């Protein structure tokens, strides 16, 4: 696909929110000068709630709005929201299960230049482990829209991880339903199940072409809904292939790797290989450099798939 038609999930998200915000009881909670709001800047003033310069207060403000029947969206930097305000999310949003949607524009390594303190490679772990919280990772424009729609309908808190890396639209036959607890098939195959979320779906599609030449026909699933986790979609695929590779732009602890392994260990044990970040803090660098350095490219998926295929349950 032409590079000019690529868009990042954060911009897609902003555009989509603007498209329906005017016609409904919409409210976006942000902090002043915190993030680039993109097209959300054009929203009418009464639709944007600017909180005080305190991250915990921003979360509590959203809870206060939800107590009066609103369904606020929060947008803010992941490291500030998730680490500084973890206990507020836990106590004021997740515990009473208030319908507040948290969207972060800097998920994964997409803001790699900002350095280790800003890059959360454990955000999915933190949110997945929190009871009542739904977790979603879109990978292209369609999934952003589908997930935003599902989040609009949700009656509990939702965490949506977005990014700044330009991505193409994934060529899929998905019917547009992105309800929580679902997954979408990006490529049919018979040799290895490759589970992905976010940008790794794009890398897996590149890897599929290489593996095809080696006679390994991978099946790629996009697990946009990390929680609730679509176990049946995973099991249906793995029962045919007998092995699995999980690729995510996240620590291998607690995210999609863990969710997949937890499900497979319990119900249908097969060899599993991870393509994810090791248990370490990352460095600053461009997102592309970092993805090369931490082994989050199609090359690692090719290696992992070949290994998993060799070890597969026959």
């Amino acid at each position, binding site marked *: 696909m032409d590079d000019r038609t690529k868009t990042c999930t954060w911009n897609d998200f902003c555009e989509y929110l603007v498209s329906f915000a005017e016609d409904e009881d919409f409210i976006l909670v942000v902090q002043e000068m915190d993030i680039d709001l993109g097209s959300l800047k054009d929203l009418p003033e*009464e639709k944007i*709630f600017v*909180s*005080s*310069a*305190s991250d*915990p*207060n921003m*979360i*509590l*403000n*959203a*809870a*206060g*709005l939800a*107590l*009066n029947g*609103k369904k606020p969206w929060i947008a803010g930097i992941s490291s500030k929201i998730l680490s500084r*305000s973890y*206990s*507020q999310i836990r*106590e*004021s949003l997740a*515990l*009473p*299960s208030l319908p507040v949607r948290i969207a972060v524009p800097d998920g994964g390594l997409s803001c790699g230049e900002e350095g280790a303190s800003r890059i959360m490679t454990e955000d999915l772990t933190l949110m997945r482990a929190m009871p009542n919280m739904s977790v979603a990772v879109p990978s292209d424009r369609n999934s952003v829209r589908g997930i935003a729609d599902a989040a609009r309908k949700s009656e509990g808190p939702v965490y949506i991880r977005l990014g700044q890396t330009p991505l193409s639209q994934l060529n899929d036959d998905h019917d547009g339903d992105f309800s929580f607890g679902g997954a979408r098939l990006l490529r049919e195959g018979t040799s290895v199940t490759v589970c992905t979320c976010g940008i790794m779906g794009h890398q897996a599609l590149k890897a599929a072409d290489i593996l095809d030449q080696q006679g390994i026909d991978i099946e790629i699933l996009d697990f946009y809904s990390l929680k609730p986790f679509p176990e049946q979609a995973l099991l249906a695929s793995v029962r045919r292939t007998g092995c699995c590779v999980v690729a995510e732009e996240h620590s291998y602890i607690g995210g999609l790797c863990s969710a997949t392994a937890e499900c497979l260990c319990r119900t249908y044990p097969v060899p599993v290989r991870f393509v994810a970040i090791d248990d370490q803090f990352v460095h600053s660098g461009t997102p592309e450099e970092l993805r090369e350095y931490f082994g989050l490219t199609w090359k690692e998926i090719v290696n992992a798939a070949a290994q998993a295929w060799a070890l597969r349950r026959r």
Partner: protein
Amino acid sequence: MEITRINELEQIASEVRKDIVRMVGVARSGPLEFPLLISDVLVYLYWEEMLLLAQSPKRNDRDRFILGTEYGVPALYSILAKRGYYGREELWHYRRLGAMLQALPDFRRTPGIDAPCVTSGTELAVAAPLAESLSMEGLNARVFCLMKESECSCDDFFLEAERCTNKNIKNIIVIAVYKHRDGSDSNDLQVKSRDRLSGYGWRILEMDGSDFASMEEIFNRLDPDGSKPTAIFTSIRNGRGLSFAEGDHTRTKKGLSIEAMDRALEELEGKSNG
């Protein structure tokens, strides 16, 4: 306020206090000192000041009450039972597995609870947007937020207080409770908090939280339409709690022994009789 009404309210507060002792005693855990201290204030709010209907606890135009400290929870539970939100029997299951009255109020399950009790962060950050959105909907509902005075001195509190002024949120009333200190009316921290809030344009009032006549006088001074956010610094006189529980912050874990509960009830009985 007529003396008979004051006597009635004192009688209610006395029963509320005894129920607090009983529920903490039966549960064998839970805070004791702070709930006893704030009982009078809560009785005044729920019987005289707030507009609410226990029969329709979700009515949209009701006044809201937000408890900004987990140490006051038994008092709120006891008040709500007395006000008819649920049966008094519920109090004896406080903190039990599956009970409606959990250690921290379960906003979804307990009638009369308007907001979850947040133990981290300032409850003003929950109360202020709630008040703001109520007034934007054209409702006259007010939001009362009761906090420990010590919780009104953190930066997050002042950031939110400043936002209240900037956003012209008028229907919020913070009740900052502290124990009366003999010898001096207020310490440095209090003076700083009040000056800072006053500097942000808040209306600062002071009242005696153990005297219903004083409370009536102060609440009557609240502008019914609200002109600016209000903070009421509320001192509680010594002797409103239990002699042996005062200053004992470890009681949350220890609870009350049967003997201590008996002694406490006798002490409260003695106070209410004379």
